[in-house]
């Protein structure tokens, strides 16, 4: 069985003061995360106040490399199958995402992936991951 990846129409993401710099970076092809200025630990999803120590946080560029922590090909929630996944970035945090540009039936936990960006309405780019 093969389930080729198909592009899924993406609506514009929620953009607010907490997310706008992230989407701006994504438009430039850069995945960012936030790291605490006090305890230096990165976290996910990005927040202005550190969930470990309540310190102020700042944007950092991520390598864009990671490993699939879990993946589920969603076959019956709309017309197009898609792969929902958690990817653990090499920086140590795990983010919800989609795995794209692959036969979805071949994806596996532990697989190495790299960030890519898929266009959404409103000139946004959404970070997703493809097998390396």
């Amino acid at each position: 069985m093969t389930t080729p990846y198909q592009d899924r129409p993406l609506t514009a993401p929620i953009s607010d003061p907490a997310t706008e710099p992230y989407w701006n970076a994504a438009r430039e092809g850069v995945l960012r995360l936030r790291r605490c200025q006090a305890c230096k630990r990165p976290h996910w999803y990005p927040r202005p106040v550190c969930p470990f120590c309540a310190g102020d946080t700042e944007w950092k560029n991520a390598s864009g490399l990671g490993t699939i922590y879990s993946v589920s090909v969603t076959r019956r929630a709309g017309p197009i199958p898609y792969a929902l996944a958690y990817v653990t970035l090499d920086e140590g945090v795990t983010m919800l995402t989609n795995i794209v540009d692959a036969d979805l039936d071949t994806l596996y936990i532990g697989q190495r992936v790299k960030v890519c960006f898929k266009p959404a309405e409103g000139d946004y780019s959404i970070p997703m991951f493809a097998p390396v």
Partner: protein
Amino acid sequence: MTIRRKACIVGAFEHPIRKAPDKTVAQLHAECARGALADAGLSLEDVDAYFCAGDAPGMGPTSMVDYLGLRVRHVDSTDTGGSAYLVHVAHAAQAIAAGKCNVALITLAGRPRSEASSGVAPRVVSATTPDAPWEMPYGPVTVNMYALAAARHMHEYGTTPAQLAWIKVAASTHAQHNPNAMLRDVLTVDDVLASPMIADPLHKLDCCVVSDGGGALVVVRPEIARSLTRTVVNVLGAGETVKGQLAGAVDLTWSGAAISGPIAFEEAKVRPSDIQYASIYDSFTITALMQIEDLGFCPKGQGGRFVEDGNLISGVGRLPFNTDGGGLCNNHPANRGGVTKVIEAVRQLRGEAHPQVQVRDCGLALAQGLGGLLGSRHGSATLILERA
């Protein structure tokens, strides 16, 4: 302060309806309230505390207390999804123990079946929900956010789809005796595995039903319980928590039951091996499996082997579970199964379950709820109940 034996469940009512296009959600709440009060032998004017969660229409208790015609001195609208109603029982017991109220009414109702809501529909999330911008673009629905946990469990522990299917088989074996259950056919492992794949590795029959309806509970002070005619069910212990993504250290191998369970067992002063009947929240087969492990009914990772071969079937296995058919086959009103978990535990302790599934001389039961999404953030609540 402990709540051990400080409060009692004296009224429990499950609405028999499963499709209610001609009733409002508020009306279903009122019908459930009426049913639970009648079951207890109490009336509206006896109620002095009211509990509801996000399924209640309007501004929570502010709308519903007025609609139901109550006069209260204590309210609580804690919302931890489908587990909220178990939290409400615990909070009612705390309020009673603290002298804040005497007779607490808890209601749940909803119409997801009539409103065509389901586990593959996009979840309704406000734009101000802090996690929404980072997750909604990726198409999280309900079922795939449980499937991620199932896939990881299989990877870590070798759990198989057939083992998960045994959970549905056990629920269906019980549901055949429940005339109100939505699915009454006894299913096999092969039936589950042959049903359409919704989100790998969860099949259609790994999912719960979508049903309209509701339920209600009445929790009272022990002195009041003793003045009534119903078999008294004591609240012996309770635990609650919320588990999330741990700031990016996502770990899908355990649920909030690993926290709420031990708290409840410690307060109740009993062990998992003492439990004679367990209502385990079963939005999906994986939900039940994860909680069975986390509550200590078997070692972590061995849930698949534990549920095989009918081990959850009353009269057959070691842990009779969800003898009403559970959310998997009977009823999951408002897409929130918490209240029905407590109701079936009360039936078992009263000896009022269907004779084909009644646990003999059932004196100690557990009810476990998990609401929200197993794969991201969820509330968990554990109740331990005894026949007085």
